[in-house]
């Protein structure tokens, strides 16, 4: 190690002389005298963690991660990779953004506040709903917060939350964990060929239902065709309609507000983040009349003393640091920096670029399904629906074996049933489509 602090934190700037001067100003003989810890609980052992120079630490982490296989991923199922423009990395890494805290002093953090205001605005355009918060953790936690919102705002009592059969187990798990304390029960309604079955939903819904949830695109990659019916059924029973989606899909799909969605949740990190082992950005949008019950932070426009436009966090009386146990949510640290990245990525694409990207998600999936379908022993897509980014394919071979054989060829897909694999294609992996089809042909 090198630097002024030879045996300690490389980021503590103290010279020995400064340390001495400070100790004497405080009036103690040594740093140990400042710790007011009873001997019986003092720690005098070692963690056994080696101290390393920066180069060694970097090499150490790099060599750990180098153990990952360099496979081409055709994976989706709730977590999507799009090519992230270099501008997103370079701008979001500017340290004034990266090393700042929550904007509790708005006069000195206008830059981040404006970026978050712009993020909110772009999602208002994409969802058609008036309120977008400044982020939740991910799709699953945003869905859970939506259910809690529904329980709070609904006029009549009702503790049932209806979710479709295709909901991912891990999302349901988070939903149940979050809503258990509020006494909500999560129940499933039937689906038909990977879309909502309106009749099954009509059977399941009653006036005890606080929220009905549906997704488009669905977990199996289909575009939902019955959103209007879901909206009407929810409306008839006074339940909130919550739609799960993402900003790329929303660029071309029906505007959620137009089909009666009261809340939109999803993972906005489909724009802005690489795969990042599941790290996300919870999108949360809702109708204007719920604004005082919204979880999380909101950035609003205001004026400063010179009557110029300025931005600030607002309605903080809903939040945990003010309202404590009566807050609308316990969220504090959120995903602000990811929201910044999403905003930059969306602005980089612009309206035309976003629509093109979304249309590619439709076209690429349809093309790839066609190509796999022409392989003997493969049928794709399994569902006779429109698809977005991904689709399920039937294989005569056991799906697990197909997935493992593909992995040996350097490709990752999901095995989702005994004879079903799921395949996702976007601008991030389309360059490898030919090799993928060739490998699939070999193993199927």
């Amino acid at each position: 190690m090198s630097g002024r602090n030879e045996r300690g934190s490389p980021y503590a700037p103290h010279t020995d002389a400064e340390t001495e001067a400070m100790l004497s100003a405080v009036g103690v003989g040594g740093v140990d005298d400042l710790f007011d810890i009873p001997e019986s609980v003092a720690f005098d052992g070692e963690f056994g963690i080696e101290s390393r120079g920066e180069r060694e630490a970097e090499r150490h982490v790099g060599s750990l991660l180098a153990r990952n296989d360099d496979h081409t991923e055709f994976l989706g199922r709730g977590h999507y990779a799009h090519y992230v423009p270099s501008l997103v990395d370079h701008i979001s890494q500017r340290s004034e953004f990266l090393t700042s805290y929550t904007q509790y002093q708005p006069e000195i953090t206008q830059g981040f506040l404006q970026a978050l205001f712009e993020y909110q605005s772009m999602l208002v355009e994409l969802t058609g709903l008036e309120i977008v918060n400044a982020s939740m953790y991910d799709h699953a936690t945003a869905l859970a917060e939506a259910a809690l919102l529904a329980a709070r705002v609904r006029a009549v009592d009702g503790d049932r939350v209806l979710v479709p059969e295709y909901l991912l187990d891990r999302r349901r798990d988070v939903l149940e964990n979050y809503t258990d304390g509020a006494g909500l029960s999560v129940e499933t309604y039937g689906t038909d060929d990977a879309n909502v079955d309106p009749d099954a939903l009509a059977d399941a819904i009653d006036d005890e239902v606080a929220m009905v949830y549906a997704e488009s695109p669905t977990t199996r990659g289909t575009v939902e065709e019955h959103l209007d019916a879901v909206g009407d059924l929810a409306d008839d029973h006074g339940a909130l309609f919550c739609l799960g989606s993402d900003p790329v899909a929303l660029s071309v799909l029906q505007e959620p507000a137009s089909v009666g969605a009261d809340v939109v949740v999803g993972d906005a990190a489909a724009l802005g983040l690489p795969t990042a082992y599941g790290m996300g950005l919870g999108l949360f949008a809702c109708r204007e009349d719920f604004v005082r019950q919204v979880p999380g932070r909101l950035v609003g426009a205001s004026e400063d003393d010179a009557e110029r436009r300025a931005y600030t966090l607002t309605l903080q009386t809903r939040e945990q640091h003010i309202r404590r146990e009566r807050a609308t949510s316990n969220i504090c640290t959120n995903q602000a920096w990811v929201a910044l990245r999403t905003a930059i990525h969306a602005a980089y694409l612009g309206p035309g670029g976003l629509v093109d990207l979304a249309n590619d998600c439709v076209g690429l999936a349809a093309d790839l399904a066609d190509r796999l379908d022409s392989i003997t022993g493969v049928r794709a897509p399994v569902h006779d629906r429109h698809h977005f980014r991904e689709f399920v394919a039937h294989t005569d071979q056991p799906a697990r074996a197909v997935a493992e054989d593909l992995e040996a060829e350097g490709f990752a897909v999901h095995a989702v049933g005994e004879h079903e694999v799921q395949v996702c294609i976007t601008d991030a992996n389309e360059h490898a489509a030919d090799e993928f089809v060739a490998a699939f042909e070999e193993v199927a």
Partner: protein
Amino acid sequence: MKYDQARWTHDADGDRDSTDDQYEPLLSEKNTEEVAVDSALPEDLTRDSIELPDLSEPELARHYTRLSQMNYGVDSGPYPLGSCTMKYNPKFTEDVAALPSAAVHPDRSDRSVQGTLALMAGLQDYLARIGGMDAVSLQPPAGAAGEFTGILVAKAFHEANGEGETRDEIIVPDSAHGTNFASAALAGYEVVELPSGEDGRVDLEALEAAASDRTALFMLTNPNTLGLFERDIEEVADIVHDAGGLLYYDGANLNALLGQARPGDMGFDIMHYNVHKTFATPHGGGGPGAGPVGVVSDLAEFLPAPRVREVEASDGEKGYERFDPENSVGKVHGFEGNWLVLVKTYAYIARLGDEGLRDASAKAVLNANYLASQIGYDIPFGPFHHEFVASAGDQDAADVAKRMLDYGVHPPTTKWPEIVPEALMTEPTEIESKETLDQLADAFDAVADEDDETLEAAPNRTTARRIDQTSAARNLRLSWQALDAED
């Protein structure tokens, strides 16, 4: 300190106070384009059009660069925001988090992402050692999510003992972080607020009175938000455990204790780590953070699924796999949490090691005590660990904070905890030099001598002048669409 923050409104004569211009205009004001949506999908499944800004890459680069210049981070200057532990974020951790090998999909097979799992297993191990805990889950995506997860674990433990219904209270000190209260309520518990004792610490008699067979958990940070070490922590643990409850450690203030004391050794059963505080991962303007949870061995079976463990392959090679703890509470995040933050955390700990971590706490505590000794405001209680709470006395703490911005420093946390009147909660962390601390003390003292009129007129040297919070809340404008509707 001399200071001027960027404000993109100077006119040709250099007049910063011109009211003609706005700040950096919104993207929407530069060039908004409406495009028709033409798609292979049926018309009834698609939208008609979409309207968003349409700018070139160079225009966007300038827009966001200007926004960044109108923002203040740790790299801009001192940031002694109490309880937030705003320390310098080393840059090399960004490089390792940006490695292509770090970007993998969460549904990859375990055998194809051995590097990711090795790092996770390594971080679980580092954190367990640092906290004196037996098992760690990395899944919670923030400190408050860690609290909520810890409470779910405690609930599962009590349920397994047949006490799930009867233990329906969580005790929280009045000085605790607001998230403690909110997390307890989210999990469905009654919150029992514990008043602080006269010395600012836990009042053992009050705790004795509050603890009962209804107590599921007592949530405590140590040192507490006043910067005071809870010296009676062993008695506290005994009272809670004797009542059949569990003791929860809020890790927000762990930076004061690294290598000096460990929550596990003090009798805590569950804890979370705010890695964006203690382990210098950037706060990113409010997130992402990560809030790993550590527990003692009796509670490991309830941790969120999956966790990561080391396994030995048939050929004797060491490897790693994900596994679901036996009685897991399930999941608290859709996948495995904020992975990129975890990479940076691991890299930071691997850089500092034993010596660096111990020294970080030593210098953080030295800095807090030195700064406290140099400023004129009244500072009740003591001695301090990593932070202290000064009282602005007759001045309004919020105005003091605004005026401090003019001196080029981010101000302390204000008006909290409420047990100190006009509180200025100050945490300089280990990264400030004596010279900077002296400048900080000068800023405090200069403001202390100023009249209310000066304070109320502040700030003057920041991008925005004082912002009207009341009108922001009364006349809600939360998008550029709302601004347009008003025009």
